[in-house]
């Protein structure tokens, strides 16, 4: 018998501490009513855990250990703060006997409250994303900065400002009332999906994608699924993320250049993720019989692609009809662009171009110019296609996308 490899063991430990840490944090925010204090206390407890557990072994009740350690630290911090302000400590409330049964419903509720606090519409979206990574995913400030491509100092400032606003403006630590819930949940999911997309197709920088960010977004969506079981839009978002991410290994060539869906090696798609995603689509559709949910419908479209043996053999009629449904709940230029691409596959490039010409508001969107260029090239209109590629290249995008477009343009003009 050989000793277990320390690297995976270390990674598992970090994961355990992080997952338990966010639950402990959620509880501590409720008890102290102070996100900043709770965070400092939990950070201290998780650092201690990472320092001592590898030596002494993981305690039988990791969460109880973390909770107790964090509570003690919070009391210290609160006393110190009180002494500085010359006030009586409120720390006594922290001495309540802990009720941290591992899967107690109140721990779940605490986490859900924290979700709605961090994604409150009174916070700007970059702050929501940063807070979600810091408090809900349990990343350190440095890791959040790294994930979002800003310096640790900048991220620390952004997080401090956000926490200050939560405290000063008294943004509540509460699950919204039933009548507000659908709208607030939409905001939460939009933030999580933004996080996913930031990782899935990095909007700038040299890396075409940031897998760690994708993984955090999927993990966060799974958490939401646990917290709000049976919620169609959460099922839909998780399905959408899994189905899109099932293509991870096939989306780029070894040089990091994007490989578009038609050209991907489908044997490299992650079948387990596809299977899970497809089941979730079905569940999401069953849970939203009266009003289509935009995430569920987008996931249904992704499922059509995931289940197709090849690009030409895709069920384009089904894809197109899902886009028609999507337009009834989410009529945006990007949805119309994608619908035009489906039309082109089903009825030919000419029909697709006509659809595309009818869509307005896409001038600043490189993919729209690229799609137009593809269709023009298919029709042999090379000069117009080259002009469309050139228009796409003038817009901001990441280095890999740029290289891909240059290649297409070169192939076209080289003929």
């Amino acid at each position, binding site marked *: 018998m050989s000793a277990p490899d320390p690297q995976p063991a270390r990674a598992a430990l970090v994961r355990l501490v992080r997952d338990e840490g966010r639950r402990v944090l959620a509880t501590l925010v409720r008890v102290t009513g102070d996100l900043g204090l709770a965070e400092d206390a939990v950070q201290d407890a998780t650092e201690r855990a990472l320092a001592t557990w590898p030596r002494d072994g993981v305690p039988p009740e990791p969460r109880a250990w973390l909770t107790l350690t964090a509570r003690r630290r919070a009391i210290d911090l609160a006393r110190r703060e009180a002494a500085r302000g010359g006030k009586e400590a409120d720390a006594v409330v922290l001495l309540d006997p802990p009720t941290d049964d591992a899967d107690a419903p109140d721990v779940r509720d605490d986490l859900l409250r924290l979700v709605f606090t961090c994604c*409150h519409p*009174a916070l700007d979206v970059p702050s929501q994303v940063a807070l979600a990574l810091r408090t809900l995913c349990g990343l350190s400030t440095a890791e959040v900065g790294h994930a979002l491509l800003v310096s640790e100092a900048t991220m620390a400032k952004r997080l401090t400002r956000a926490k200050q606003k939560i405290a*000063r*403006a*008294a*943004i*509540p630590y*509460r699950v*919204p009332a039933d009548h*507000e819930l659908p709208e607030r949940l939409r905001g939460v999911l939009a933030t999580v999906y933004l996080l996913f997309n930031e990782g899935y197709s990095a909007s700038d920088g040299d890396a075409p994608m940031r897998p760690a960010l994708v993984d955090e977004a999927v993990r966060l969506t799974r958490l939401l699924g646990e917290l709000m079981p049976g919620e169609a839009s959460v099922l839909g978002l998780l399905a959408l993320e899994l189905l899109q991410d099932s293509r991870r290994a096939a989306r780029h060539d070894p040089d990091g250049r994007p490989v578009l869906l038609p050209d991907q090696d489908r044997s490299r798609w992650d079948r387990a993720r596809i299977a899970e995603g497809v089941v979730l689509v079905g569940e999401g559709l069953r849970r939203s019989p009266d009003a289509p949910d935009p995430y569920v419908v987008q996931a249904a479209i992704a499922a059509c692609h995931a289940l197709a043996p090849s690009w030409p053999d895709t069920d384009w009629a089904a894809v197109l009809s899902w886009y028609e449904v999507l337009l009834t709940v989410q009529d945006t230029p990007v949805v119309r662009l994608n619908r035009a691409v489906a039309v082109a596959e089903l009825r030919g490039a000419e029909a697709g171009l006509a659809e595309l010409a009818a869509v307005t508001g896409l001038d600043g969107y490189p993919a729209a110019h690229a799609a137009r260029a593809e269709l023009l090239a298919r029709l042999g209109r090379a000069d117009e296609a080259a002009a469309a590629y050139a228009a796409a290249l003038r817009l901001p995008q990441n280095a890999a996308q740029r290289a891909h477009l240059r290649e297409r343009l070169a192939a076209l003009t080289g003929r």
Partner: protein
Amino acid sequence: MPTYAAIIYSSDLDWTAPEQEAVMADYTEFGEAAAAVIRGGAALYPTGTATTVRVRGGKGGDIVTTDGPFAETKEVLSGFYLLECADLDEAIKLAAQIPGAWDGGVEVRPIIQFGG
């Protein structure tokens, strides 16, 4: 409980003019509905009555006054309430009932409780 300033930005109207009676009735209605949490407030005369004061060159420098409001915009600061609410969600819900919220917009800001 926190107290919020609900700062009303609306068209530059004269609350005292007879043609504002309907709007004033809406405000009276809000004032009665929210009486339990209103801690203060004021309606302001139109920006034609405003004078903006700046001191150039730091403390003790030259006083420069300009006629008119701080910024010439279509929507102007026309009044404010002080609302004592449990949290921001409650303050937002109330602010949405202030007529200025549909005539213009209402900015909600926590007020500092000195010496609290």
